[in-house]
């Protein structure tokens, strides 16, 4: 029961981060939001008894993917213009 409530809170946080990372104008903040979504998804994988995938998602989705995005933003521009 406690686990279900914790998972519900995590999923709510994940939705907020996803909406924020799509809607914000600052791309660096958007990338950090994506990283947060990835980390929460990795926790959900662990709760769903998939430790292999949780490790892969935490190391690749939240680590290397974020680094790749940040490098690309550094080489281009940071703010989204309309």
């Amino acid at each position, binding site marked *: 029961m406690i686990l279900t409530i914790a998972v519900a809170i995590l999923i709510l946080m994940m939705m907020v981060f996803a909406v924020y990372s799509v809607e914000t104008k600052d791309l660096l903040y958007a990338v950090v939001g994506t990283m947060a979504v990835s980390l929460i998804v990795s926790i959900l994988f662990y709760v769903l008894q998939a430790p292999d995938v949780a*490790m892969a998602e935490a190391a690749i989705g939240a*680590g290397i993917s974020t680094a790749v995005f940040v490098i690309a933003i550094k080489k281009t521009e940071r703010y989204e213009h309309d």
Partner: protein
Amino acid sequence: MIKKSIALILIAILFVAIFFTLANDLPFGDNRTTTGVSDKYIYHGVNDTGASNLVTAIVVNYRGFDTLGEVTVLFVAATGVGAVLYNMGRPAGKKRKKTEASLIVRTGSRILFPMMLLFGAYIFVHGHLTPGGGFQGGAVIATAFLFKYVSDTRYHIDHNKFTATESVVGMTFALVGIMGLLLTGYFLFNFLPNGSPGELLSAGIIPIIYVAIGIKVGAELTGILDNMMEVEQ
């Protein structure tokens, strides 16, 4: 504005369709009703392959050919990044950034870099016993190299050595498959004894292939990061 509202309505319909189709047809957490291929993997996996981690058994042994294809896709993607960013790099030997990292970060990176490499190696060597494996260990190794890049502005990987490592490791994977073809008649067939499940030296060819995959994934992800970092602004 009209475009946006139409898109929002379409997306809401999509969300409802996905969610209710799933909730009706495939109830969450239902007990296994289909006697599909998963049952064979679950009930015979340990006896067939000797690996107690069933995900490893599927990735490397049952579906080893898929994994060979996947490593090829990764290689093609790394090559593609290098090809797209070709002649945008800066000459070697120069600093990448103006400000250098501080003494604490440089000293810490010198201490922590071997530890991170060791942790990555631990993950992929124990891939058939504990959670983890070649892909995760390779990602950890790439993170270690990223840390080195961030902390030391003059650090460059030696491209020749990296390419050589990658080629040797990829050839190891293919050679193990061809040896299986020669000895037993099937590509990537397990020709080594299974041993007793739960020990480090067990599970036949799985540790060899997973070490190869780990080093290859680490080298390729490092190559991608290197190619993207060397581009001038």
